[in-house]
Each structure stands twice: as structure tokens, then as C-alpha cells.
């Protein structure tokens, strides 16, 4: 499973980058996104859900960032 580092990327660029990364995948494939605390971790998961992807989990990293696991939804 690939990990995309979106730390330091502001809204909505982080979401659009995540969208572009998901476009490369097949439905059912998984992707990890590394997100900043604050706006990013609040907005990006909700927006991905709105696009029809499946959120599988959220983990706080040792550095205080967040790792979001997403499964690509049906087209």
C-alpha cells in the first residue's frame, strides 16, 4: 500500500492531490495519506467520503501527524 505525504500541503490542495493519487488506483485498492493535525485531518477525510471512497482508519503518528487509510470506492 502506497503512502502519500500531504504534510505541509494546505486545503484544498491536499485533497486534490489525494484525489489524483486515488485516480491511479482500482476500486478496492488502498492508500495511506499522511496529514497534518488541524484543518487537514478534519477536512480531507470528510471530502474523500463525499467522493464515495471508504475511510478505514485513522492513526496518530509518533510525530503528532495523522495517517489515514482509504479504500478507493466504485467509479
Amino acid at each position, binding site marked *: 500500500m502506497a503512502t502519500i505525504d500531504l504534510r505541509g500541503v494546505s486545503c484544498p490542495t491536499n485533497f486534490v492531490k489525494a484525489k489524483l493519487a486515488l485516480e491511479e488506483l482500482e476500486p478496492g485498492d488502498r492508500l495511506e495519506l499522511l496529514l497534518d493535525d488541524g484543518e487537514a*485531518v*478534519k477536512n480531507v*477525510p*470528510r*471530502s474523500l*467520503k*463525499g467522493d464515495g471512497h*471508504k*475511510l*478505514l*482508519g*485513522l492513526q496518530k503518528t509518533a510525530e503528532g501527524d*495523522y495517517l489515514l487509510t482509504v479504500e478507493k470506492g466504485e467509479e
Partner: protein
Amino acid sequence: MKEQQEKPRIDLGNLKAGGFIKERGKDLFTVRLRVPGGRMAVPRLKKIAEVAEKYGGEFVHLSVRQSIELININFRHFDAVVQELGEAEQQVASCGARVRVPVACGGCEYNPNGLVDTQKSALEVDQRLFGAPTGHHKFKVAFAGCPFDCPKSSTNDVGFQGALLPKLDKGACISCGLCAKNCTPGAITMGEDRKPLLATDPCIWCGDCVKVCPTGAWEAKQTGYNVRIGGKWGRNPLVGTLFATFLPEEQVVAFITGVLAWYKEKAEGQGRIRLGDIIIQEGPALLLNHLRQQFPHSVVAATVPPQVIDTQVGVRGVQPWQP
């Protein structure tokens, strides 16, 4: 010179609800257009541009309450302006001591934050109550779809703010923690069993937990409007206070009608006075009791009078309510 000598004939019926506002220049008026909730169909926008170009000045003004105002309209052209705007079903707004055109945020059709259909509510109120004389002063209504409250609902005579009461289906929860992370007021924490716990006190009913929940474990138990009454801006601002929670969307017109009836009765003989000042005089309990008869499930147990902002200049001309 011939035009100046002609006596203008104007259909005074067009002026009944107001919306024609005198400008500085001789014979010139601003024509305020009726745009409930700020939603403007593109063909209407084109027609407005056409009429503005033909009869108005070099620009239009976007008012703070979501209207388009045509500037520098000569009063001789009132009938033509009304008739040509009417071709695109565009009407003129209200002003003065009447129910004004309601303001609303974008609502919930395309805005991901919207919890209720504020556009539908604004349109309904506009259709049913537009221009109704209050007998006393202006009467403003606004609809906000969520607690972000972009329309600043509590600065209106009656302000509606969308709200969602969440409930959890523990069995459907996958313990991802997204809801707790997303809960801005910190009402949700993850319990020892890795399931979320909701503390009702700091919850502001924003619905963020429902929106982010990957499995639908968080769902809406109830949605509706929190209603604040008695707000105003201007010379002596007041912030409206909470009178009802989770008012069903379909009861909005009846609720405003109930408030208006109380306002008209209590303001009798007092001339040009706003609703908020009447509530301060009479005490909020009287209005609560009046509304509770018709809306027993929504009206709150107790509230405070509209709030004066201490930073304002001057002394208010009304006597404070004595409990």
C-alpha cells in the same frame, strides 16, 4: 424639454411594499430587487443586467442582505423597470416597517456543511410573508444551515440556525476515531472500549461526526432549526437569544407568524420600536409562553432577553426588564 413638461403617470400599486429608495440626486431612486436567500437564476441575472443598462447608472450595488440594487433609476421609469423585470419574473423588494426579504446561506444541496434546506425555508417565508406590515418597525429573518452561521442569524428579529442531534449505533462503529478527531468543541472522546462517547454539554449540534463517520454509525436523531429572537443591528445593536431548538423545517412560517402576532400586540401604541426592545420591556418569559402553546416540543424552558453589547456607544433609550 418636452419630457420635463409631461406629467409622469406612475402606478402607485408598484410602490406598496416599498423597495424604491430615494437617492441624493433629483428624481433618482435606488430600486431594491427581491432576491430571497440570495439565489439568482442566471436568466434573471441577464434580464437585470439588461434593465440596469437601459435605465440605471454604470453599476449595480450588491446589498448586505443579498439583494441587487439598481442605482440612479429615474422615477419616471418605475413602471417600465417593473414591467421589464417582470418579463423574467424578477420583482422589487420591500423596505420600511415590513417583513423583509429573508437572507439565507447556500443551504444543503451543494454546500457540504448545510444541515437543513435554508434555501427552501427562505423561499417559503418570502412567498408567505413578504412585505407584511408590522405596524411598528422592520422585521428581518435569516437562515443559517449550520452552526458556522455565515448569515449571522442572531442579528435578525428571528434567526434560524440549522442543527443536528447525533446518535451512535455502537455495533456499526469501527473505532477509527475520526469523529473524536473531527469534533471541534471536544464533545466526543474515545472510551476505554475504543468506542466514542458523546458529552451533550459541549456539543453544538454541528453534525461533523455524522459527516465524517465512514460507516454511518453516527446518524441524525433529529434535525431542525435553533431559533434566536430579538436581534438587530444599527444604532443600538442587540444579539438575539435562544427561544427554540430543533424546530421542524415545516413549522418555520407558523413560528414567525406567531412571533409577529405577539410583537404587534405588545408594541401597540409604541410606534417605531423593534421586536428586541419589546422583549427587553416585557421579559422573554411572556414570549416563550406565547410560543410554547403552539410549539411545545421546540420552545426552550427559559432564556435571557436580547443581549446589549457593552462596547457600543451611547445609552439605550429603553428601560431594562426587571425580573
